[in-house]
C-alpha cells in the first residue's frame, strides 16, 4: 500500500469517529429535551469545542496531504470531498449545539405537550447522517443516492411540525416562545438532513466525478 493511502485511511477513520461524536450530540440534544435533563444539553454544548478542534485538525491534515502528495484523480477528489464533508460535519455539530441551547431554554419553562414528530425526525436525520458517512467510507454510491431521496421526507416532516406548532401558538399565545424554540429545533434537524444530503452528494462526486447537487428539484 502506498504511504499516501495509509494517510488517507487514517483520515477516513478520524472522520468516522468525528461522525460518531456528532451523531451522539444530536441524539443527546434531543434526549435532553425528551428527558427534560438540562445536564445532557450542557454536555452537548461543551462537547462542541472538541468537534471544532477535530474539524480544524482534519482540514489541516487534508491540506497537508494535498501539499505533500499532490494527489490526482480519485485521490484528489477524495481529499477535497473530505474537506467538504468535514466542514459539513462541523456544521451539524453546531446545529446540535443550537438544538441543545433551545432545549435549555425550553427546560426553563413547563413542558408543552410532547411533540412526537421531533423524535421521529431525529431518527430520520441521524439515519441520513450515518448513511451518508457510511456511503463515504465504503464508496457506496447507491446508499448515497438513497440519502438524497430521504431528504424530502425530512422536509415534509418539518413542514408538518411547523404547522402543528402554529396551531399550538394560535390556541395558546403563552406557548409562543416555546413553540418558536421547537420550530427552531425542527428547522435545525431539517438542516442536518440537508447537510447529510450534501455529504451524500459529495460522495457521489468523489466516486463518479459528477457534481449532482442543485440538479435535483429544489
Amino acid at each position, binding site marked *: 500500500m502506498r504511504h499516501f493511502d495509509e494517510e488517507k485511511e487514517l483520515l477516513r477513520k478520524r472522520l468516522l469517529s468525528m461522525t460518531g461524536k456528532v451523531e451522539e450530540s444530536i441524539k443527546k440534544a434531543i434526549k435532553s429535551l425528551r428527558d427534560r435533563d438540562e445536564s445532557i444539553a450542557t454536555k452537548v454544548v461543551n462537547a462542541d469545542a472538541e468537534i471544532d478542534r477535530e474539524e480544524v485538525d482534519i482540514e489541516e491534515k487534508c491540506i497537508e496531504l494535498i501539499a505533500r502528495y499532490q494527489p*490526482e484523480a480519485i485521490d484528489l477528489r477524495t481529499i477535497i470531498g473530505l474537506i467538504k464533508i468535514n466542514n459539513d460535519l462541523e456544521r451539524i455539530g453546531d446545529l446540535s449545539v443550537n438544538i441543545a441551547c433551545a432545549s435549555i431554554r425550553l427546560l426553563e419553562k413547563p413542558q408543552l405537550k410532547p411533540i412526537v414528530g421531533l423524535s421521529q425526525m431525529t431518527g430520520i436525520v441521524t439515519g441520513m447522517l450515518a448513511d451518508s458517512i457510511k456511503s463515504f467510507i465504503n464508496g457506496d454510491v447507491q446508499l448515497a443516492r438513497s440519502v438524497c431521496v430521504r431528504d424530502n421526507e425530512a422536509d415534509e416532516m418539518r413542514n408538518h411540525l411547523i404547522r402543528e406548532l402554529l396551531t399550538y401558538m394560535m390556541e395558546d399565545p403563552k406557548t409562543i416562545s416555546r413553540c418558536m424554540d421547537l420550530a427552531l429545533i425542527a428547522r435545525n434537524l431539517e438542516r442536518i438532513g440537508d447537510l447529510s444530503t450534501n455529504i451524500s452528494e459529495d460522495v457521489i462526486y468523489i466516486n463518479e466525478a459528477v457534481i449532482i447537487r442543485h440538479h435535483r428539484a429544489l
Partner: protein
Amino acid sequence: MVNKDKITTENLNLWFGKNHVLKDINIGIEENKITAIIGPSGCGKSTFLRCLNRMNDLIDNTKITGKVSLGGENVYNNRMDVVTLRRRVGMVFQKPNPFPKSIFENVAYPLRIQGVRNGISERVRKALSAAALWNEVKDRLNISALSLSGGQQQRLCIARALVTEPEVILMDEPCSALDPIATAKIEELLFTLKEQYTICIVTHNMQQAARVSECAAFLLLGELIEFNNTNKIFTNPADKRTEDYITGRFG
C-alpha cells in the same frame, strides 16, 4: 471555436525488428493546442513522436503501417519529401542540443541550408523573440551557444525550430535535463507558442503534462489507452489504467 486536427494517425503500427512498439494508434492532434503524450518508460512515447516527422526513418529495421496525416496529406506517402516534412514539423529534443556555433548562426542554420540569403537577421531576431530569449542574448549574438545555461540553450533550440515557421512543433521531454526554474520558463513559453503553433509534447513528468497541455494521451505498452482533455484525464480518467498511472498506483 471548433478546432480541427492538424495531425491525425490512423491505425499507426510500428515495429523495431520483431518488437511491436506502437499498436494501432488513432489520435488527432488539434491545431493550436498543446497535446501531451504520457506513459511509463518504454511505452513508445518517443517513438510515436518521431513517427510524426519520420525521424524513425533513421533507425534500421523499422516497419511502419497505417497512416499519419499532416493537414490531410499522408506523411508516409512516397511523394512526401522527408526534408520538406521535417521543415513543416519541427522538433525539440530532450537534451538541449545547440550546435557549437554562435547563437546567431544556430538560429540561422535552418535558413542557410534552405539557401535563404536575405532578411536572415530579421528572421533570427523574430525567432529568438518568439522563444522569449531575445532580451537575454541580444547583446551577445556572436558568443558560442554552448556558453548559455541549460534553460537558455533549450530556448535557443526552440528558436532554431521556430525560425522556419513550422506548422507543428514536437517536443520530446524538453525539460527533463533542466532544473525546475528553467523548466518553469519553458512551460510559460509553451503557453504563448500555442497561439501560433500546434504543439505535441512527450513528458514523463505527469505534473508537467497536467500543467501545460490541453489534451493528453496515455500510452501503455504501445497502446493508446486514453486520449482526452487534460482536465478529464487528471480529475476523472475514463480508464482504470490511466487512473492507476496518474495516481501512482501503477506497477
